[in-house]
């Protein structure tokens, strides 16, 4: 089941633009390794779920997985072959607005090779370029 909010204040949202770099959520905070976005994108609930399953299978369920993003944004679209007008289309899916630098997933409790293998599988499920990162010292 793809991730989506349980309830929302407004049914539909503006599309907006993903500009700039991530200034928050851009550090590995919980696990030992992270998967960092290198491009701006809408990551849908399906992408996130596919990534989670890929990581879980690659580590045989032994790793602790943190999902650092959540699809808060409703994305609407009009059906095929419909004339313009008559209002905004229905919500098709939910997406997370991701800026370059955002940590998408974190892994803990596994060695580096396993994490690398798992993130490679997850990377194939993502619609953008990503890279594996380690924790950086803050002092």
């Amino acid at each position, binding site marked *: 089941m793809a991730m989506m909010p349980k309830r929302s204040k407004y049914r539909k949202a503006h599309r907006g633009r993903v500009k700039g770099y991530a200034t928050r959520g*851009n550090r590995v905070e919980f696990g*030992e390794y992270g998967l960092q976005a290198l491009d701006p994108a809408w990551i849908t609930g399906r992408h996130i779920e596919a990534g989670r399953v890929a990581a879980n299978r690659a580590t045989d*369920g*032994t790793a602790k997985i943190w999902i650092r993003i959540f699809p808060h944004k409703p994305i609407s679209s009009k059906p095929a072959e419909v004339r313009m007008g008559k209002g905004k289309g229905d919500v098709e899916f939910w997406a997370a607005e991701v800026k*370059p*630098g955002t940590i998408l997933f974190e892994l803990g409790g596994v060695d580096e090779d396993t994490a690398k293998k798992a993130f490679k599988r997850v990377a194939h499920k993502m619609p953008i370029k990503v890279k594996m990162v380690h924790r*950086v010292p*803050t*002092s």
Partner: protein
Amino acid sequence: MSSSEILKAAKRERVGSRFARRLRKAGRIPASIQAEGETPHLDISVGEREFLASRRHHVHLYDIDVEGAMETAIVRELQWDAFGDRLNHIEFKRVQRGVATEASVVLDVVGAASGGDLNVLVNEVQISCIPSLIPNSIEVKVGELTAGDSLLANELELPEGLSLAMDGETVLITISAHKEEVAEPAEGEDALESDGAAPEAPDASDSAAEGDSSGGGEG
């Protein structure tokens, strides 16, 4: 244990993002030394290569030569760019040799927990010691811990000369038992997949047929 290193620094006459950006382009990192008592705050810049080389050699105590005036300091905070590749800013904290100061040190978890999943809840601990004794990391052996065990801050084996500067009851590491359900959904998923394979087979042939027809159309 770390030794001290002399770091040459230049005063920053003009501050702000534009000038900081120019410094970074010139291979220098904007930095500041915190005010302490009546000693004022200082805006400085240090060479990126020299600073990173000292970090690679696990130096924690710096003698900063600010245009002739020496300041003894430790790193209080490092600010990285969005990708964690380059340093944006360094904040130094003034210290005195021989006087205990507080610093945060990373935990180095060694070994694998037997019979459970390792959960590292806290990655850095606050310690108090004289600046020359600040370690690069504190080793934590988890090999003897079993499922249900936890490690508190006051149970850490600290090197000589170090004392804890945080709540001793803080839980650093826990070992949780392997969840039995982990295996069950996998079997369920497999079963679902195998069930779903039979009805999907005609679809696959349909799509293949479509592919053939479309291929014929192109030809």
